[in-house]
């Protein structure tokens, strides 16, 4: 129906976005009727989302005319933004932004670099940016989950942690158990994605490849490659961020800083 109303691809895109946003707002209104107030958060998120993605699309249009290595700048900017966003899940832990940015840079950056070097990810900007951003976004989510879980585990086990400190234990030792459970919990979505691949869902990248005429078998295999890359980068990010954040929960005098009301 829309295609007959809009003749330019850009105006068609905005019309499609408006319908998708309206659907999301409808759900929010339904939630409101049950006293679940998500209106302002969702409205801001939708607005931010469309502005950000249009900005990226515009930058991509510009980059397509530039040299291939220019995509590195965009991916770096994405990593910095991802670090900042997921650090909010570690409220009251000093240095969380630095930890998040370094972890995502190492996790997503290393996997993207290795796979690009191996020729799995094409260096063309149209491939490197979407695939790289998928890896970064998933690393960001995993990092946020890991930090959030770590924070809540530490808050709910402050007594046990301080008991261990009071007996002379090293700070990282006192929270090792909670760091491990944070890593495990943060990787559940990535592992489940891999488990359910093709059975429960056919991800967007594969859909896109099919729509653009790729062989269904190659599209399927490449989708596995991407999901496996996501698992590798998410795992590395989660490992690094929980390893680093362990020390940030304590003061230099080895006092637990992350406490309810503390």
């Amino acid at each position, binding site marked *: 129906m829309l295609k007959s109303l809009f003749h330019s691809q850009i105006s068609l895109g905005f019309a499609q976005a408006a319908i998708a946003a309206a659907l999301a707002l409808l759900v929010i209104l339904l939630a409101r009727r049950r006293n679940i107030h998500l209106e302002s958060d969702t409205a801001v998120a939708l607005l931010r989302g469309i502005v950000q993605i249009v900005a990226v699309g515009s930058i991509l249009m510009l980059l397509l005319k530039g040299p291939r290595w220019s995509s590195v700048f965009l991916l770096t900017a994405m990593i910095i933004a991802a670090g900042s966003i997921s650090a909010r899940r570690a409220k009251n832990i000093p240095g969380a932004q630095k930890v998040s940015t370094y972890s995502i840079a190492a996790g997503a950056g290393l996997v993207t670099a290795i796979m690009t070097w191996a020729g799995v990810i094409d260096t063309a900007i149209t491939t490197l940016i979407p695939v790289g951003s998928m890896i970064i976004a998933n690393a960001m989510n995993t990092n946020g989950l890991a930090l959030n879980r770590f924070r809540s585990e530490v808050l709910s086990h402050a007594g046990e942690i301080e008991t261990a400190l*009071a007996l002379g234990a090293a700070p990282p030792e006192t929270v090792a158990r909670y760091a491990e459970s944070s890593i495990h919990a943060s990787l559940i979505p990535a592992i489940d994605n891999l488990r359910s691949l093709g059975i429960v869902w056919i991800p967007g990248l594969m859909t896109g490849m099919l729509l653009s005429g790729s062989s269904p078998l190659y599209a399927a295999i490449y989708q596995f490659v991407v999901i496996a890359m996501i698992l590798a980068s998410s795992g590395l990010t989660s490992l690094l961020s929980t390893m680093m954040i362990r020390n940030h929960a304590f003061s230099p005098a080895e006092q637990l800083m992350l406490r309810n009301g503390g």
Partner: protein
Amino acid sequence: MSATHHSAPDAVVLRTEHLSRRVGDAAIVSNISLDVRRAELLGVVGASGSGKSSFLRLLNRLDEPTSGAVFLEGQDYRQLPPRELRRRVCMVTQRPFLFPGNVASNLRFGPLQRGETLSDSAVSELLERVGLPGFAARDVTNLSGGEQQRVSLARALANRPEVLLLDEPTSALDEQAKLGIEQLICNVVRQHSLTCVLVTHDRDQARRMCDRVALLEAGRLIQTGTPAEVLHA
């Protein structure tokens, strides 16, 4: 298993000088100066919210003083590595917070942090001291509240501390278990000449157990003296 003490009897083991801690605008602990002598059992009493537990947390540096100082055997405790300080000034909390596993692994926890493995006979000896012979292999989930607190005390003693800090160690226990733990603490402290600071809201308990009492009110030290002098009301 007894602690190694370097100071003479009646020497000051722990001293606080104008010790204070503020959190935001609130003065949690205000300008407390007092001495704790070797083998003394000092009670810190006061109403709920008077800063007793906050004061105790400052003594093994679980919290940082905002001003003032704490001296252990004459040495400013900030000059000591925190882990060494906490080995020497050990705390037993209101809730025992036993680690998952058996009783023996809990007792071995402190020494293990320094690379020492407590022998089976040392574990047995500690358990006998706290009235739990034969409990080494017991899983901590199968212990009563009183037994858990005894294990918590034994776990602290396994570190061979010079000072024992006790934060309301009997407040979660029934009357019978409470009296048993009181007796146990008094015996352990006396037999091994331990220096001990006991925080309690229970004035009768302070009368029964303490050599000297410090009364706190709104984070301030109001009075120190014998239980008869301070707790006359």
